[in-house]
């Protein structure tokens, strides 16, 4: 076999796309062709819809897709995490049953980890799975579940052994969301949107072959999923942009994006919208107020320094240097920026900050900023957890003495008594 080079890969994928891409195919039909060709997920194993392509060459393939305007496999949402987890820990049966329909977009997925009693402390899950007869029977409640209302499958973390220590008694399952024992309710947030769900499981059933890895290995598998979530956080939540080209496949992709991105439509506001500050200062007539100017300046200093810190981390990574401390601060810094921005927006808006919706400035955008920013310092790891991570991993400070990991989980104090 000849050696792969950027040129050879580029030529091969371009020739294949020229021969096969057709915007008038149905979206699923086209993605099935993609899955068979290996070009949809070229870094995946050859036997599972990929081509074993080195990760460094994947951008070359993506560039060729963009050039010709060809649609790729379904990527947005939790399905990507499901695929990564199944590839790493799943059986051939899991791969056979799930991977293709993930790539075609026919199946959507959700992640059933967080519970009302375990947010930052995910390993404290108390949803229980018990073997009854020849099936797993699940009882418990999950929360903050994006897209659960239309998901076909869920990635479930549940406790299977209460006599083992906290992390050892967990197991990981794939659960069919379309069954009578699973009840999905929207969770309305303080900003009025309902981007997440609560999932109630009452004697819900999981087939024994849908256990992932072994009983008791649930935490290791969960760590894999979470690692992919952190790594891909920007991609998962960034605004997927549909092409405005004409053709059946494009039409179907636009509809898919609208559904997938619906929960994230307020995300720009939760970041604080620093980009609107100067415009608002001028239009509200506060730009010359020396007190407000100082507040605006403080915010701009922080947000610029944050931006340059992220660029410094990227530049170091591109040079192949080991990650410095600047690479671990982004999440914490972005909540500082968001909070400062919300404060300045309040100052600039004055009494208008009392209003909401179409009575609020910028047709409700300002009001939405003010009631969405509190999510930034909580979602995806609270500021407090971020500070723990920074102090322990970057600064090498000792962990707090632990009182919950050495005794049977049954004896660990917790919120829910069962």
């Amino acid at each position, binding site marked *: 076999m000849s050696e792969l080079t950027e040129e050879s890969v580029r030529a091969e994928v371009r020739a294949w796309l020229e021969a096969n891409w057709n915007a008038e195919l149905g979206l699923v039909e086209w993605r099935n062709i993609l899955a068979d060709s290996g070009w949809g997920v070229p870094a995946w194993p050859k036997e599972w819809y990929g081509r074993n392509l080195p990760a460094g060459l994947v951008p070359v393939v993506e560039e060729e897709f963009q050039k010709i305007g060809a649609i790729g496999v379904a990527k947005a949402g939790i399905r990507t995490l499901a695929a990564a987890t199944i590839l790493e820990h799943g059986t051939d049966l899991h791969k056979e049953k799930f991977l293709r329909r993930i790539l075609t977009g026919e199946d959507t997925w959700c992640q059933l980890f967080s519970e009302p009693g375990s947010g930052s402390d995910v390993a404290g899950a108390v949803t229980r799975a018990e073997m009854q007869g020849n099936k797993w029977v699940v009882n418990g409640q999950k929360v903050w579940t994006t897209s659960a209302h239309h998901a076909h499958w869920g990635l479930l973390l549940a406790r299977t052994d209460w006599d083992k220590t906290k992390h050892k008694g967990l197991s990981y399952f794939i659960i069919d969301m379309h069954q009578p024992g699973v009840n999905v309710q929207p969770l309305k947030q303080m900003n009025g949107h309902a981007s997440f769900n609560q999932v109630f499981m009452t004697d819900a059933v999981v087939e024994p072959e849908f256990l992932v890895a072994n009983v008791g290995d649930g935490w290791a598998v969960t760590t894999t999923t979470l690692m992919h979530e952190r790594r891909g956080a920007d991609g998962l939540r960034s605004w997927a942009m549909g092409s405005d080209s004409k053709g059946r496949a494009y039409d179907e992709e636009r509809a898919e994006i609208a559904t997938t991105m619906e929960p994230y439509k307020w995300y720009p506001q939760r970041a604080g919208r620093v980009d609107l500050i100067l415009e608002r200062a001028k239009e509200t007539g506060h730009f010359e107020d020396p007190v407000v100017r100082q507040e605006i300046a403080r915010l701009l200093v922080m947000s610029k320094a944050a931006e340059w810190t992220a660029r410094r981390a990227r530049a170091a990574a591109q040079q192949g240097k080991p990650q410095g401390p600047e690479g671990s601060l982004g999440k914490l810094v972005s909540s500082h920026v968001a909070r400062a921005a919300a404060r300045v927006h309040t100052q600039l808006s004055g009494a208008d900050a009392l209003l909401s919706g179409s009575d609020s400035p910028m047709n409700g955008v300002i009001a939405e900023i003010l009631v969405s920013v509190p999510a930034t310092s909580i979602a995806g790891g609270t500021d407090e957890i971020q500070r723990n991570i920074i102090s322990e991993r970057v600064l090498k*400070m000792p962990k707090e003495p632990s009182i919950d990991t050495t005794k049977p989980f049954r004896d660990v104090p917790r919120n829910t008594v069962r």
Partner: protein
Amino acid sequence: MKFSFSSEQEEFRTNLRRFLAERSPTKEVRRLMETDAGFEPSAWRKLNVELGLSAVRIPEAYGGQGFGFGELGIVLEEMGRALLCAPFFSTAVLASGAILNAGTEAEKQALLPGIASGDTIATLAWVEDPAHWEAAATKMTATQSGNTWKLDGHKSYVLDGHTADLIVVLARAAGTSGDAGLSLFTVKGDARGLERRNLKVMDATRKLARLDFEGVEATLLGEAGGAAAPFARTMVEASVCLANEMAGVAERLREDALAYAQMRMQFGRPIASFQSMKHKHADMLVDVELAKSAAYYAAAALDDGDEDVEAVASLAKAAASEACVQTAVHAIQVHGGIGFTWDNDTHLWFKRAKSSEVLLGDAHHHRELMMQRWAA
């Protein structure tokens, strides 16, 4: 825009850090800060010549090394970390900058080689009482008689003003105001009619002087009446340099506080294991890293001729002023009672943080400058 140091720059930093750690241990800082001069001329000359420090940013045509603000920033950051007692900021940043920005070719040829070689200790005198950092507040008058000029008035807060061999002075033609009529001059440290008094300072590692001028003979530097623009440029550069020095001060404070927290036992465990302490240290890391990013970016902006450089310089100084002082406050707190004692070293850097906070204008001042320059 450059966001990462080259391997040559990293190596330069590593060597410099090792050198300064050897030559400027805290014991030496404490000894020198108690002296009148604040440094030891022979020891400083030796270190300066060995490493070519005051030559770093002077072009090769004037006997320098011809590096940029990126390298000068590294020197300053490492000096801040080591709290080196030397007339470097006065000579290599303020005076050199003013001469490079304002001087004619002949003046640069005459003045810069002595600075580059380490023979001349120089400074820039512009602030008067009551202190304003802008050139427009200058009251000192310059009167021409024939080929010479005479300066009358006073200057204060002059870095190393009592020891400098050469003083660059900002003065104005009588009857002018604002930015008009401003000129720069050079005056010899031992000029007749110049009285120099060492001020009592909070930060003993950075000496300041009050200078009184009575008919002091001065030589014009650059164009008569045209000093406003080159002086403003010098302040922009100095702000960036000070921001880089402060990054080093802040990082040293943070690292020392962390080392202490790891070592100090209370309630049967290192205080570093308490979450209140861990969160404070995470916050300190954020403050310091953001200030470093701004300082590095600003130095690169100077080297690249970025059109936003004036705003970026003020941004970097504002970020550094806040971060450095905040880190110093946290550092004392982390140390607890011992941190408030004279024998503990934290106060040396705390005081440098406080003096740097105010020097060249505090965070409020620079935030306003940034808004005027950027968001107008």
